[in-house]
């Protein structure tokens, strides 16, 4: 137990609908303005829901090298861009020489752990009609390497030179948090010194939006800006988003040894399954209770020191109530002292990227002493007894934050992040 290595965060990278890059994305969620818009492609395809949250436009070939548009799926683009910012932020690269190649430590001891719910959705959507039209002998040789859900992690390894363990986990909308959990354990156990951990997702296609809509999971609100409204009495589903968040995790010893300043500590992580239903959480919060309890116990801190929660808060009627009940079960009266936000009001739901992006927002809240507001929270659902920040950011100084994630399949993840 005493031999466990302390794991810190030394770099963070974000590509979100609220903004590209850590600073822009953070300012975007602080502003509390929803990023959702009516998407022209979805509208043209006649999907039942046409609103989504896209990341700011980028030129793949210009930013990622010639051929990136043709050879790499969009989810890989977003992952590479977030990883690039994270390794630069952590001081692992010599930017003047190469913006991505790790030179500040032994790259054989650097792992990569990403979460993705869907993988190369756009590649499936583009290639399958072509296959039907042109026939089996014209299937693109690029299809498999583009769509495999581990390609983002593999591509980041090729570009950074990181030759440690390289894995992609899938726990649907908990995947980004699950990746941080597993990455933390790889460092804690001494398998790697540094791991780039995070979540990547670019699953907005006419097919996936239509299918999520048929499930009843998506908001049908006619006003894009008002559609994602976590914890509000009028919430009616989530808004699909896309993006990526990558954190550089590192053993504290290794970080201090190379003079890197820790931004936060990944103090606790917990995982569980509801063992209940394919898409719905049990009403009492079920497995989420276990994941949160396990994360708090793992952190070994007094639960009352946790002052901020970046909630999963999808804006679906079932999720938000179940999450509030789970918190009450774990924290009892201390639940009232948690300053809660769901940044999904601004960003929409980034699925497999959500857990990583929101962990980064929780760390930023701790570093800046500011909790972003939950966009569109005008009348809080009376069944949700939480202190949710609305309207303006709230200034709060605290030592520990919790970030929760729950995925379809009933898979739950929770992270406890503490001040470095």
């Amino acid at each position, binding site marked *: 137990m005493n031999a466990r290595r302390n794991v810190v965060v030394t770099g963070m990278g974000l590509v979100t609908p609220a903004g590209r890059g850590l600073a822009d994305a953070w300012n975007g969620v602080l502003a509390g303005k929803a990023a959702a818009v009516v998407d022209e492609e979805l509208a043209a395809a006649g999907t039942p829901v046409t609103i989504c949250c896209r990341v700011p436009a980028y030129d793949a*070939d210009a930013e990622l090298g010639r051929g990136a548009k*043709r050879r790499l799926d969009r989810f890989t683009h977003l992952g590479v861009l977030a990883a690039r910012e994270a390794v630069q932020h952590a001081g692992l690269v010599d930017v003047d020489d190469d913006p991505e190649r790790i030179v500040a430590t032994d790259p054989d001891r650097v792992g990569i752990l990403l979460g993705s719910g869907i993988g190369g959705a756009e590649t499936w959507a583009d290639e399958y009609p072509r296959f039907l039209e042109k026939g089996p002998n*014209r299937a*693109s*040789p690029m299809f498999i390497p583009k769509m495999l859900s581990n390609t983002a992690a593999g591509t980041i390894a090729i570009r950074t030179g990181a030759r440690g363990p390289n894995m992609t986990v899938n726990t649907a909308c908990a995947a980004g948090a699950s990746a941080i959990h597993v990455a933390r354990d790889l460092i804690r156990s001494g398998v790697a010194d540094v791991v780039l951990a995070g979540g990547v997702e670019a699953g907005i296609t006419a097919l996936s939006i239509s299918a999520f809509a048929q499930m009843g999971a998506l908001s049908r609100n006619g006003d894009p800006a008002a559609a994602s409204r976590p914890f509000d009495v009028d919430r009616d589903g989530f808004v699909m988003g896309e993006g990526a968040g990558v954190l550089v995790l590192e053993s504290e010893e290794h970080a201090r040894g190379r003079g890197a300043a820790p931004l936060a500590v990944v103090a606790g992580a917990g995982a569980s399954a509801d063992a209940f239903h394919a898409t719905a959480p049990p009403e009492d919060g079920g497995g989420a209770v276990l994941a949160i309890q396990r994360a708090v116990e793992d952190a070994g801190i007094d639960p009352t020191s946790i002052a901020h929660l970046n909630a999963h808060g999808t804006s679906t009627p079932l999720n938000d109530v179940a999450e509030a009940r789970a918190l009450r079960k774990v924290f009892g009266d201390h639940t009232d002292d948690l300053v809660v936000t769901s940044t999904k009001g601004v960003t929409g739901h980034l699925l497999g990227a959500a857990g990583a992006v929101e962990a980064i927002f929780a760390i930023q809240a701790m570093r800046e002493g500011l909790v972003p507001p939950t966009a569109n929270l005008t009348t809080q659902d009376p069944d949700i007894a939480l202190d949710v920040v609305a309207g303006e950011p709230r200034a709060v100084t605290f030592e520990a934050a919790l970030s929760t994630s729950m995925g379809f399949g009933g898979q739950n993840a929770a992270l406890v992040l503490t001040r470095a």
Partner: protein
Amino acid sequence: MSQDLFATFQTVLVDTFGVPAEDVTPDATFEALGLDSLDVVELTLVLEEETGVKLEDEELEDVRTVQDAIDKITEKQQAAA
């Protein structure tokens, strides 16, 4: 014939693979143009659409440059004529 094929190559390499037009010369190797083995397979599919001739894996073994590929396609076109 071979001038037409060169123009076809240039169009495909520029449009599909983003190669700068001035880099496409008869003796340019696919490697020098930034194409890896998967790209070359994809190139053969696009060229099949353009020329009706498919270069098989074993025929690609000694194809390194644009001119090598043009020669091979010309050879197959003549054999079929």
